[in-house]
């Protein structure tokens, strides 16, 4: 191995942490990059076939420490724990194995003394209706983080409409995966703001219940399990389905439709043919005081074209830790309301956590500039969103 063992064995002992983030990699490329960082620059990266052979055997465990600060001066220390769910094993066939992985990751967080744990990506999908499956928790609370994800999706839709000169109130909104926790939260927040609401999901009973709930609040919603029935009518689409891979085809879609892909893994198939659609990746926020990863996983665990961009679900745990509100803010499925979203937005904004600049697979959708502190800011961010 070619280097001394002296004092490199345990560079840093695990100590009690404020928060933990449980996640997994959404692609083999991302997983390979994580392994490459762990191997260090002096070793050749492992070939793809070795990564695919080794990763499924890695038990869930902490990968790095994460230190964050607030614009108030508050600081919080956390851990990123990877469940090491293989990117090609997110399907239902692996649900029991994956729940066991999330449980084991949760046990790592509890053992590390984390006071609040955010469940990222499929971790929250696996657990959101089954919090009793988590290990005994002592002083650790869990949040799916979905409330802040919904907040950033809604903010993103509003911002994209503003950028494109669209009037949201005249739009037809389609939510794909509408009965999930994120999808239903988006429905409650966005439905009152649009002209027409279309809800699509696989479970018709859940769709009916959601539509009835919205109708009780004075919003009429149409439902369909067949996505293609709706896609041609919508000009604003939120994709929030729990898909194991980017496999969603919206079919015929209104010209110039605004499409928010809020899935993790992404919902939209890379080969989806949507000429003229304005696609952006939703549910992402940016922590303006930055993050410090130890070891340095910048750009590896957060693979975005802007710095310090993180999924809302993970940022929720950080925001609550900075706020010293160690409570299970988002739990269960179907409890995300506009009021709760607003409350979470306020907490996040107090600590300098805002909607990330919009981008898609082709790159940024906004111009960005360097702030005096070295942060990248999008030109289109309103002054009200900037700290100070």
């Amino acid at each position, binding site marked *: 191995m070619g280097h001394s063992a002296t004092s490199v*064995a345990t560079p840093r002992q695990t100590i009690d942490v404020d928060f933990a983030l449980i996640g997994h990699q959404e692609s083999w490329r991302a997983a390979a990059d994580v392994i490459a960082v762990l191997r260090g620059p002096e070793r050749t990266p492992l070939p793809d076939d070795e990564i695919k*052979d080794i990763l499924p055997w890695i038990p869930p465990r902490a990968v790095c420490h994460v230190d964050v600060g607030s614009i108030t001066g508050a600081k919080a220390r956390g851990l990123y724990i990877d469940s090491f769910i293989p990117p090609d094993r997110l399907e239902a066939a692996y649900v029991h194995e994956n729940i066991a992985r999330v449980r084991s990751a949760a046990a790592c967080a509890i053992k590390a003394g984390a006071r609040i744990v955010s469940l990222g990506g499929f971790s929250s999908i696996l657990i959101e209706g089954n919090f009793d499956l988590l290990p005994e928790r002592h002083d650790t609370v869990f949040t799916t983080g979905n409330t802040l994800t919904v907040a950033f999706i809604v903010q993103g839709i509003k911002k994209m409409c503003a950028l494109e000169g669209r009037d949201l109130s005249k739009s037809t909104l389609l939510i794909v995966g509408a009965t999930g926790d994120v999808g239903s939260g988006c429905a409650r927040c966005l439905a009152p703001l649009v002209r027409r609401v279309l809800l699509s999901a696989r479970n018709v009973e859940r769709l009916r219940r959601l539509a009835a709930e919205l109708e009780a609040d004075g919003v009429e919603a149409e439902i369909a399990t067949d996505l293609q029935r709706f896609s041609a009518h919508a000009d604003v689409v939120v994709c929030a389905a729990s898909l194991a891979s980017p496999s969603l085809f919206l079919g015929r879609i209104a010209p110039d439709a605004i499409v928010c892909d809020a899935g993790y893994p992404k919902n939209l198939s890379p080969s989806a043919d949507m000429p003229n659609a304005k696609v952006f990746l939703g549910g992402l926020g940016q922590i303006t005081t930055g993050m410090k990863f130890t070891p340095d996983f910048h750009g590896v665990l957060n693979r975005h074209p802007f710095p310090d961009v993180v999924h809302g679900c993970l940022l929720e745990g950080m925001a609550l830790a900075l706020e010293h509100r160690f409570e299970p803010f988002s739990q269960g499925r179907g409890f995300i309301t506009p009021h709760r979203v607003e409350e979470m937005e306020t907490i996040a904004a107090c600590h300098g956590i805002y909607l990330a600049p919009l981008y898609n697979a082709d790159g940024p959708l906004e111009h960005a500039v360097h702030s005096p502190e070295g942060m990248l800011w999008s030109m289109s961010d309103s002054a009200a969103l900037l700290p100070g």
Partner: protein
Amino acid sequence: MQPLTGLSSSSPMECSSLSATAPIWQDILAQAMTGELLAAMNYASLSEICDDPAEVADALEHAQGERGHAAAFAAEGRKIGVDVTNNVDAKHWKRLREAFLRCIAERDFIACLIVQEIMLESFAVASYSRVGKVAPGSLGETFARIAAEEEDHVDHAMSILRAERARDAQRFDDKVYRLHLDVMTTLAQMLAKECKDGHCEVCHHTCVKPSLFEVSLSAAELRGASLQQYLKTLDMLGIPGEVTLAWVTQLPV
């Protein structure tokens, strides 16, 4: 040192339906038997540096147990009509023995336990368990039984090692890492999907690894299970998971 001959001597063969895959089982048994004999030698060496008579007795009892395991593997070979040979001087096994003897030379009882119980036994427990699941009849039962027995004495060592780590975690972790670089690098080379540096000197003909699929095994699976068991054992010792993850991902493939 324990005599190594005589364990694989022929006795009347039991007919078996495993004839098609017998050469594969022969090599698997040869690796397992070599590992057990090496473990027996290690425990015998360990008994020579123990001060406490109870520890001496324990080490000798373990040595005897490992020899019993080697004999059991030889017997399983006879049942399927193959002669199970062993070679503790084969290149990888020899390096593992030499690493252990360095700990003996330093009279470092804790280092000996780390090498034998944490590193070599993780490999044995995990790989025997996998083999036990797919091997038919008494062959599978023997692998599964021996995996369970190996796991039992890992538990005994764990309590000693945890107490040692509680005294000085940093020193203990540094020691584990130093031994990891030595021993686990060799084990990782043994466990690689292909033997890139030539014949292992245990398989009786060509390398068995490409044929393992014929008995529902694979080199990748045996490596994965072994490294997983190793990580879990290090977790039980209390070494931070992010640290051991880096150690394992840095091993050669």
